[in-house]
C-alpha cells in the first residue's frame, strides 16, 4: 500500500482542519503514518458536523425514552408509535452555510438530505416543515439586498425540491433578526409514515453480505475548497471548484420509489443515505453500529467525472445516493429494481469480521482503518464556557424605562412586523396538499395537521423557537421553545409526544457561545422531562458566526403529536360570530425580549419568567379534553405580540371581528 509519510504534513492537516494532536492520535490508532485517503477519512469522521465533538458533552442526558418511542437518537431519524400498527419517523437538519453561498441549491439539497434520512428508515415522507431565519430585509443597504436575494432563493429552492418529490410542505416558521445578517439559518424538518414493525436501520451484518451503492453517479461535488488531484497536496494541484452541491429532486423521487419497492422484499439487512462526508460516514456508521468490518472496491463506484481518485470517491458529497447491506444472493434482484427506476446500482464490497474498513483501488489496498476507534475515539472537546457579561446589563432593562406609546400606535406597529404578517408570498410557493392528507395548511396558524389514511388519526406538528428569548436567557428560552411547540400541537387537539431539534449556535471557540449552548441543552432537558416529550432525533450546527458576530442562540424545536380522531382537529381562527372568547392561564406583565420592545424601541433586553411546567401541562390537557367533548370551536396560543396579535391573527384569517374587555 502506497504509504510513505506525506511531505507537507502541516499544510495537509490544516486543510483538513485537523490538529497535530489528532495526527498523533491517528498514528496511534493505525500503528503507522496515515496516508492521504486515511487522513481524509479521519477529517470527515472527526469533523464538527459528523462527530459533534464540541457539543457531544452536553448532548447526553436528554430524555429519550417513553412508551411510545420506538427509536431514539443514534439512527438516521427518530421513530414513535402513533397507534393502529403505524409509526411516525421524523428528524430536522440544518443546511445553513451552503444556503448563504447559494440559497436555491443550498436549501434544495437541505430538503433532499432530510427526505433521505426519512425514507432510509423505510418510511414514505408525508409532510415537511421548515424553520428559516434571515437578517434585515428592509431598505437599500447591500446587506438588505443580499438578504432579499437569499429569501427568494431559499424559498424557491425548498419549493422546487419538496414539490417535485410530491411531499407537501405544510407549515414552518420564518423570522428576521440582524444577528442573522452574516449567517442565515435554513432548518428542514420531514416526517414519514411506516408500519411500526417494518422499520429499517443503518447496519451492516453477516459476513460476506454484499454492500451495494445505489442512486446517482458520484462527482466531485462539495469536496471543500480544494481538490487533490495527486497524492501530494500542493498549491498548484488545488483546483478551486464550486463547493456547492446541486440537487436533482427527480432522481431522488426515483430513489424514493425504488427504495420503497425494495423494502417490500426481505433482501435488506441495513441501509443508510449518503449525507455529509458521503461514502465515508455511511460505510463507517453502518459497520460501526454492527461491530463488523467492510471491504470496499472504490473502482466499482459509478463515476460522473473521469479521473476521480479514491480520496475523492470517499469524501464526495454528491446527492441522491444510498448504501445498502443486503442478503447474499439478492444482489441481482436488487439491481433489477434500481435499473427499473433508471438508477445506478453497483456491488462495491462486502461485510467482513475484521472490524476494519479496507478500501481497494483496482485490487490495490489504498486504506486500512479500524472502524470502532474512528467513531468511539473521535475527540470530545471540553471547551471553556463563560457567562456573557451582556446578560447583566440587559437584565436591568424593563418596559417602564421606555417612553409610553399609544396602544393604537403600538398595535399597528406590531401588526406590520415581518415576524407577524401573513407569509402567503412564501408558503404559496410550496405544494401543501399533494398526498391529499393536509387538514391544517400553512398560514392556518399554530400547528400544521395531516390525517393518516391508514388508521384514521391525525398528526399535528409545529416548529418553534424565539431567538430573542434565547439571547436574553438561553436556558429558559430553550425551555420555552419546547413548551411553545407543544402548546401549538395541543391547541389543535393533539397530544404532544416527542421532539426533534436543530441546535443552531455561534462559534464554539468563543466561551460565551459555548455557555449559551450548554444552558440551552439543560433547558431542553428540563422541559422535555417535565412535559414528557422525549427527544428522538436532532442535529447541531455550530460556527454560525461571521466577522466575530455570532447568531442569537437558536435551538429550533419541532414537536410531533397525535389526535386519535381525524374528525376532531381543532382550527385556530374564529369559527362563528357570537361565540365566546376565553383566555386561559394568568396574565403577568412580561415584556422580556418582547416583540413590543423590539418593534417600538429596537431593543432586545429584560428577563424571562421561570417556566411553570405544571400550569403548561394543565393547559394542554384542558384544551385536548375540552376539544374531545366538542366544547371548542377553535384555539390559539398567545405568543409574540401577546393577546393583541393572537386575536388579530384569528380575526384576520376568519374575517370575523372580536370585542375584548380588559379590566386592567
Amino acid at each position, binding site marked *: 500500500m502506497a504509504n510513505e509519510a506525506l511531505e507537507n504534513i502541516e499544510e495537509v492537516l490544516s486543510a483538513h482542519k485537523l490538529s497535530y494532536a489528532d495526527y498523533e492520535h491517528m498514528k496511534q490508532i493505525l500503528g503507522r503514518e496515515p496516508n492521504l485517503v486515511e487522513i481524509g477519512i479521519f477529517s470527515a469522521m472527526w469533523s464538527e458536523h459528523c462527530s459533534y465533538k464540541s457539543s457531544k458533552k452536553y448532548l447526553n442526558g436528554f430524555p429519550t425514552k417513553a412508551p411510545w418511542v420506538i427509536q431514539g437518537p443514534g439512527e438516521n431519524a427518530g421513530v414513535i408509535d402513533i397507534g393502529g400498527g403505524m409509526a411516525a419517523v421524523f428528524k430536522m437538519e440544518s443546511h445553513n452555510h451552503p444556503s448563504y453561498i447559494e440559497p436555491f441549491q443550498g436549501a434544495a439539497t437541505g430538503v433532499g438530505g432530510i427526505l433521505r434520512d426519512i425514507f432510509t428508515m423505510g418510511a414514505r415522507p408525508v409532510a415537511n416543515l421548515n424553520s428559516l431565519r434571515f437578517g434585515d430585509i428592509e431598505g437599500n443597504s447591500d446587506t438588505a439586498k443580499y438578504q432579499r436575494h437569499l429569501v427568494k432563493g431559499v424559498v424557491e429552492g425548498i419549493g422546487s425540491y419538496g414539490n417535485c418529490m410530491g411531499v407537501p410542505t405544510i407549515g414552518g416558521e420564518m423570522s428576521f433578526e440582524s444577528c442573522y445578517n452574516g449567517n442565515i439559518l435554513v432548518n428542514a424538518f420531514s416526517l414519514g409514515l411506516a408500519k411500526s414493525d417494518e422499520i429499517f436501520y443503518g447496519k451492516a451484518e453477516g459476513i460476506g453480505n454484499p454492500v451495494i451503492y445505489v442512486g446517482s453517479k458520484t462527482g466531485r461535488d462539495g469536496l471543500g475548497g480544494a481538490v487533490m488531484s495527486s497524492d501530494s497536496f500542493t498549491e498548484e494541484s488545488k483546483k478551486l471548484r*464550486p463547493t456547492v452541491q446541486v440537487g436533482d429532486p427527480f432522481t431522488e423521487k426515483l430513489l424514493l420509489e425504488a427504495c420503497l419497492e425494495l423494502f417490500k422484499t426481505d433482501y435488506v439487512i441495513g441501509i443508510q443515505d449518503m449525507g455529509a462526508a458521503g461514502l465515508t460516514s455511511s460505510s463507517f456508521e453502518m459497520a460501526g453500529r454492527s461491530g463488523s468490518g467492510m471491504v470496499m472496491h472504490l473502482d466499482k463506484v459509478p463515476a460522473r467525472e473521469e479521473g476521480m481518485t479514491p480520496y475523492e470517491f470517499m469524501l464526495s458529497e454528491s446527492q441522491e445516493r444510498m448504501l445498502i447491506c443486503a442478503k447474499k444472493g439478492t444482489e441481482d434482484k436488487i439491481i433489477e429494481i434500481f435499473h427499473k427506476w433508471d438508477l445506478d446500482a453497483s456491488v462495491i464490497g462486502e461485510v467482513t469480521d475484521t472490524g476494519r474498513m479496507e478500501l481497494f483501488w483496482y485490487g490495490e489496498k489504498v486504506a486500512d482503518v479500524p472502524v470502532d476507534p474512528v467513531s468511539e475515539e473521535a475527540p470530545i472537546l471540553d471547551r471553556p464556557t463563560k457567562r456573557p457579561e451582556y446578560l447583566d446589563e440587559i437584565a436591568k432593562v424593563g418596559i417602564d424605562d421606555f417612553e409610553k406609546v399609544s396602544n393604537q400606535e403600538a398595535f399597528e406597529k406590531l401588526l406590520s412586523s415581518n415576524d407577524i404578517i401573513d407569509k402567503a408570498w412564501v408558503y404559496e410557493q410550496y405544494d401543501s396538499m399533494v398526498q391529499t392528507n393536509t387538514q391544517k395548511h400553512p398560514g392556518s396558524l399554530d400547528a400544521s395537521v395531516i390525517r393518516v389514511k391508514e388508521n384514521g388519526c391525525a398528526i399535528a406538528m409545529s416548529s418553534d423557537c424565539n431567538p430573542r428569548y434565547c439571547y436574553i436567557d438561553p436556558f429558559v428560552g430553550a425551555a420555552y421553545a419546547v413548551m411553545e411547540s407543544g402548546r401549538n400541537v395541543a391547541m389543535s387537539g393533539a397530544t404532544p409526544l416527542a421532539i426533534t431539534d436543530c441546535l443552531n449556535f455561534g462559534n464554539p471557540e468563543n466561551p460565551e457561545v459555548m455557555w449559551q449552548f450548554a444552558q440551552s441543552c439543560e433547558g431542553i432537558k428540563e422541559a422535555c422531562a417535565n412535559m414528557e416529550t422525549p427527544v428522538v432525533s436532532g442535529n447541531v450546527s455550530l460556527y454560525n458566526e461571521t466577522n466575530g458576530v455570532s447568531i442569537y442562540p437558536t435551538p429550533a424545536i419541532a414537536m410531533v403529536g397525535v389526535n386519535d380522531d381525524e374528525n376532531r382537529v381543532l382550527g385556530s381562527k374564529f369559527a362563528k360570530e357570537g361565540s365566546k372568547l376565553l383566555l386561559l392561564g394568568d396574565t403577568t406583565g412580561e415584556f422580556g425580549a418582547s416583540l413590543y420592545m423590539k418593534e417600538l424601541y429596537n431593543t432586545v433586553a429584560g428577563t424571562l419568567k421561570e417556566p411553570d411546567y405544571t400550569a403548561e401541562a394543565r393547559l394542554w390537557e384542558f384544551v385536548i379534553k375540552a376539544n374531545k367533548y366538542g366544547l371548542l370551536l377553535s384555539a390559539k396560543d398567545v405568543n409574540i405580540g401577546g393577546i393583541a396579535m393572537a386575536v388579530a391573527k384569528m380575526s384576520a384569517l376568519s374575517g370575523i371581528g372580536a370585542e375584548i374587555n380588559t379590566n386592567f
Partner: protein
Amino acid sequence: MKAIVNIYLKEGVLDPQGKAVHHALDSLGFDSVKDVRVGKQIVLDLDAKNKEEIEKEVKQMSETLLANTVIEDYDIEIVE
C-alpha cells in the same frame, strides 16, 4: 443593437436537465449524442451606443443579475 448572453453551469457542476435530455435522446434512438448541457440564452435589445460601452454594461448586467456566478459561467456576444 443586440447583445446575446449565453449562461451555462460551470464545468463539473451537475446538470440534471442535461442528463434527462441526454437520456431522452438516447431512448429516441439518437445514439451519436455523447453529452448534453442545457443553459439559458438572453437576448437584449439595446439603444445604440458604442460597442465598448455596451459590452461593459452587459457584463455588469450579467454579473449582478443575469448569471448566478456561484455556479454559472457566461459569455457575451454583441450583434450590430
